[in-house]
């Protein structure tokens, strides 16, 4: 059941991002893209992570809706513009490397930085 809501939450997030975002920046430029981030990601985050449509348990590895946005962007371009999947592989690998490096560093920061080690309970990944 919770895996089903994860699929549904991911589908809604992916559909919203790639249905709304390109139209917003084509219509309103940079400000449209910024506004699209506000309206799309805010409501998707509220549904997927605050209410919890995407299955996350405390103390487990955080699964972010970014996975859905990622796969959705690739499949959207493949279906809509008949793009070839292999062409995006270098960028995809670079994105994973950059994100992984940030995760490594952020874990160390959370472990050692005084801002994350006050007497209040420690912050878990997002909630």
């Amino acid at each position, binding site marked *: 059941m919770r895996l089903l809501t994860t*699929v549904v939450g991911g589908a809604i997030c992916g559909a919203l991002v790639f249905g709304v975002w390109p139209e917003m920046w084509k219509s309103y430029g940079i400000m449209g893209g910024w506004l699209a981030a506000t309206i799309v990601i805010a409501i998707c985050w509220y549904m997927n992570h605050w209410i919890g449509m995407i299955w996350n348990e405390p103390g487990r590895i955080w699964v972010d809706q970014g*996975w859905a946005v990622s796969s959705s962007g690739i499949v959207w371009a493949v279906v809509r513009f008949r793009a070839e999947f292999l062409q995006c592989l270098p960028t995809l690998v670079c994105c994973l490397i950059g994100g992984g490096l940030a995760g490594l560093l952020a874990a160390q920061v959370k472990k050692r930085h005084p801002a994350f080690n006050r007497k209040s309970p420690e912050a878990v990944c997002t909630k």
Partner: protein
Amino acid sequence: MYEMMSHYAGAIGMPPVSVLTTIFGAFCVAFAVIICWGRLVEDFGPIGGMMAAAFIIGTFWVLNHKLPGFGINPELIPHPEGGSKQFGLIYQGFRGAAPWVDMGTAIAAGMWVCGLCETGRGGRVRNAVESAPRVLATIAGGIVGGAIVGLIGWTGANLFGYK
């Protein structure tokens, strides 16, 4: 310098300078989200999450994915070899003809690695295996949503033109 930077473009599928910008852009957005988003939610509740969506994702979208837009060059700036010039840090292959790689990839990967590192040494493999079906379900959801939104370009519906 430019010669050296673009020498290996054929072998790795993208100019080396774009490797640098892509990794840097992915690093920045993932680090900012992991560090700031949780604290914003702690401090402001759900409103904090929506603020984070606007301030972090919106602002980093400009850094990573922007294209010249309204009031700057709404028709895009043409590349001498065809296509449009790119301005975002995250490189889109083949002058935008490759499938779109979103910075969500970087954020999700960063969150996952961060969670893996925060797990105690004994339970890392178990936690990674436990998270696999949830990651796969999220990716599957994204595939469904993206494919169906992509299909709207194929319908060829003539909404207001028929008699």
